[in-house]
């Protein structure tokens, strides 16, 4: 237990003291400022946007949901960048650089070491994602007087999505070199996003094949499904034309959702984690 906490703390200090962390903080502040600017102009001009007289669209909900959806995308993206940088070289990369050997030779077991590295990265990334997510919601709430239908759950699902990425990246760090792992995780992330967009298009066109493919991708890469489910919940109560339009947009819709995907995401992290532990136990370092 002491050993677990020692390594978790080591992970925290490593995260905070590396230059990369400062870069992430600067990028985040820049993003939040731009996001505030976007909110400011969108809501200032909201009154001048008038839909055709016979179409009943709640422009405030539409704009607010779109903006929060945008900030959720950015939060997920920045959270994934942070997660990947913290974990991409935890095993092979650190072994190549000679950082891992002194730790593995200690009585702490390899499994404990890897689990503690997961917890360390998870602590940093979950805190980061929640802070940025709630900052985004607050910016839209304060400037536009619009809050998501569900405030807490989407944030938790974004954090869950990042945990899935951490698990994948740790597994990759055992079986791949740092560079290959970084590329692999970002490709998976991109594939997930494309599959999500494809799902929206599939539903708009009512194409069975595209919907099917997107559903498979959602289960195979549950971070994407969690993110989509979070988006769905910010406008859970929007109905009629507003709801329909939101479903169509790039930040709308979720066709694999609810408890099914949440439970599956937990199982997924456990399975990927178990694979990582087994491969690490067999690895020469």
């Amino acid at each position, binding site marked *: 237990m002491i050993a677990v906490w*020692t390594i978790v703390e080591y992970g925290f200090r490593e995260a905070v003291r590396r230059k990369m962390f400062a870069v992430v903080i600067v990028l985040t502040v820049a993003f939040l400022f731009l996001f505030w600017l976007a909110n400011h102009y969108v809501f200032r001009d909201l009154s001048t946007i008038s839909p055709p007289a016979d179409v009943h669209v709640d422009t405030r909900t539409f704009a607010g949901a779109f903006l929060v959806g945008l900030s959720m995308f950015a939060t997920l993206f920045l959270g994934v960048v942070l997660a990947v940088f913290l974990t991409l070289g935890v095993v092979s990369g650190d072994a190549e650089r*000679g950082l891992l050997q*002194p730790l593995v*030779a200690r009585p702490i077991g390899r499994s404990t070491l890897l689990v503690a590295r997961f917890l360390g990265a998870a602590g940093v990334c979950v805190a980061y994602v929640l802070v940025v997510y709630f900052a985004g919601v607050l910016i839209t709430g304060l400037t536009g007087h619009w809050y998501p239908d569900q405030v807490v759950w989407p944030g938790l699902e974004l954090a869950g999505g990042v945990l899935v990425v951490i698990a994948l990246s740790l597994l990759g760090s055992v079986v791949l070199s740092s560079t290959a792992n970084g590329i692999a995780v970002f490709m998976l992330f991109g594939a997930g996003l494309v599959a999500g967009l494809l799902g929206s298009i599939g539903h708009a066109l009512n194409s069975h094949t595209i919907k099917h493919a997107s559903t498979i991708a959602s289960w195979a890469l549950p971070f994407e499904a969690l993110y989509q489910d979070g988006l769905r919940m910010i406008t859970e109560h929007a109905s009629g034309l507003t709801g329909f339009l939101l479903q169509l947009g790039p930040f709308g819709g979720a066709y694999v959702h609810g408890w099914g995907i949440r439970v599956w995401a937990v199982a997924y992290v456990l399975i990927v984690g178990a694979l990582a532990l087994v491969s690490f136990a067999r690895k*020469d*370092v």
Partner: protein
Amino acid sequence: MPNALAVRNLAKRYGSVQALRGVDLDVGEGELVGLLGPNGAGKSTLVKIAVGLVRPTSGSAEIAGARAGSRAARSRLGYLAELFRFPGWTSADEVLELHQRLAGSRGGAAERARLLELVALSDAAGRRVDGMSKGMQQRLGLAQALVGDPRVLMLDEPTSALDPVGRRTVRLLLEELRGRGVSVLLNSHLLSEVELVCDRVVILLGGEVVAAGTPLELSRPRGVELETDAGTTRTDGATREDAPRLVAEAVAAGRRVYGVRVLTSTLEDVYLEAVGGETS
């Protein structure tokens, strides 16, 4: 009492490379054993198996009776890897503190100060690793290996980055450790260093033990050399006991003897003979 390290018929294959081919090696309790051999001989592989970083293909290795790699084995060990690094963002003192916690050492600040002093890094306790020279990092690595007073030490080329003064510090340190009854396996390519401090020497070549014994056992007699008015003659195979007879015979034959030398092979000769001139 079981040996500090007992290696039996140990073999390791990395893909198509056979790094070890059935090695037997013992480090007795309190013994200091030097492991010599050219690059690629398998020295680091043997040590890595002993500390549990690498899994053997066949054979066994035990640390004080516990299977190498098991928690019990690792908890008795101090290890200095050949190629290692500490995170650039930590200070020397933090590195030692981390390892104290992982090793379960209760030595606290006093132990850290003592270890830093031992490797002449007292002034650098708060210095960040990325501001240290390679030699300082290696000495810090040595201090790290000594955290928690391990009974068995595995040192893989501990002086490769050190200057002569640093090497001498390490040699004195090894002598002190032996005085305290610590068992040490020392990988090195510095023959003089090994010759000076080791109780026993094992020479590895191509994954096999090609010579083993105390430095004295290994340095076999190589003959007696006589310098006379007829030039220098060498009698191969003769020993110190033969010297008076050889001188008497030369004198009886009317030669004027200017000098007599008993030749023994140094560890270097033994080494060069054993590895057949392979470069290290």
